[in-house]
């Protein structure tokens, strides 16, 4: 069964003024849709087409070499954007609570220093990519960035928070000012969803 573009769980203008409606619409209907279309194309006729995109990325070495890079790029693009829409929301922001708050505190020495570490990863990713908060195999939290659409799932990690720093994610609203976009993005982070992802699995 072919992958499909997930419905956005809020309106295109719901994240204004931090992320503008025009950016959200193009990002969702054009960029994300293209990844979905292209991963389907790459997997057409393959027995792997029955797997979830997460399964494919977690076991990327089992994907035949001739389509592996296409699955990394487009399957990664599909998985990364699907997560991205979920961990944002209108009227969100603030700070995590409960177990996630404790885990961030012990891993990074507090929420502020976590934010600093994460923002630095996002700011310094040269070219296109993502910054992530991931849970590793031992359940420990870590922050790093990946290039292009490379997914932390390929490293055996579970991404629980991610920011897209491809220029298409912010250029219409922030142009060259990536740090301003990152700064504003904290206002739309859906920490309840991040906590749910942290608690699962």
């Amino acid at each position: 069964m072919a992958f499909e573009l997930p419905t956005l769980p809020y309106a295109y203008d719901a994240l204004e003024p931090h992320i503008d409606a025009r950016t959200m619409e193009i990002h969702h209907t054009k960029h994300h849709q293209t990844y979905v279309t292209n991963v389907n194309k790459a997997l057409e006729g393959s027995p792997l087409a029955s797997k979830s995109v997460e399964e494919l990325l977690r076991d990327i070495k089992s994907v035949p070499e001739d389509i592996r890079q296409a699955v990394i790029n487009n399957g990664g693009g599909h998985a990364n954007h699907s997560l991205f829409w979920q961990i944002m929301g209108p009227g969100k922001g603030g700070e995590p609570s409960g177990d996630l708050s404790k885990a961030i505190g012990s891993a990074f020495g507090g929420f502020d220093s976590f934010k600093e570490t994460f923002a630095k990863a996002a700011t310094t990713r040269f070219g296109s990519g993502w910054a992530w908060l991931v849970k590793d195999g031992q359940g420990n939290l870590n922050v790093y960035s990946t290039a292009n659409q490379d997914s932390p799932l390929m490293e055996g990690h579970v991404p629980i928070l991610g920011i897209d720093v491809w220029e298409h994610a912010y250029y219409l609203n922030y142009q060259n000012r990536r740090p301003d976009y990152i700064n504003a993005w904290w206002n739309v982070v859906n920490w309840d969803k991040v906590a749910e992802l942290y608690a699962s699995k």
Partner: protein
Amino acid sequence: MAFSLPPLPYAKDALAPYISEETLEYHYGKHHQAYVNNLNKLVDGTADAERSLEEIIVNADGGVFNNAAQVWNHTFYWEGLKPNGGVPEGALVDAIDRDFGSVDALKQALTEAATTQFGSGWAWLVVDGGSLAVTKTGNADMPLRHDQKPLWTIDVWEHAYYIDYRNARPEYIQKVLDNLMNWDFIIDNYARAMRL
């Protein structure tokens, strides 16, 4: 001696409507300038501060390479763009026919490379060991790192086209190839590369 932003070889609206004045304000005025500023910050007080951009590009890694190469790449990109930029002629045409079959086939190869460079990067026409070739590079990577002589480039970082074309990278590529290729610049670069 600090590196500086070279003057744009034309007015900021000279490439419109294919590349807008607004794009050039950001792309040249902000992005290109930022690479110059970052490079100066990184090399300040180091031996690289006394080296040429090309020497740094061939030898450096990390942030110094990224910023030095991006300074060079953008300067080269601006010079390669021009409205009414002449036509391919002379020895260059012979080489294009020999290595690609036709100018249209060369443009097709450039389109393919520029369209399929995943993420940020560049597509290039280069001289590689005496032959013409089309290549693509990620992020700041460029032909001097690969013993190739660049003749022309197109920037496919999203900042190069997002204001004017949004996600429609193929449309940007086509407009540039059809309207803004500075063939006089390519002819000069080819002559220099081949020592004609």
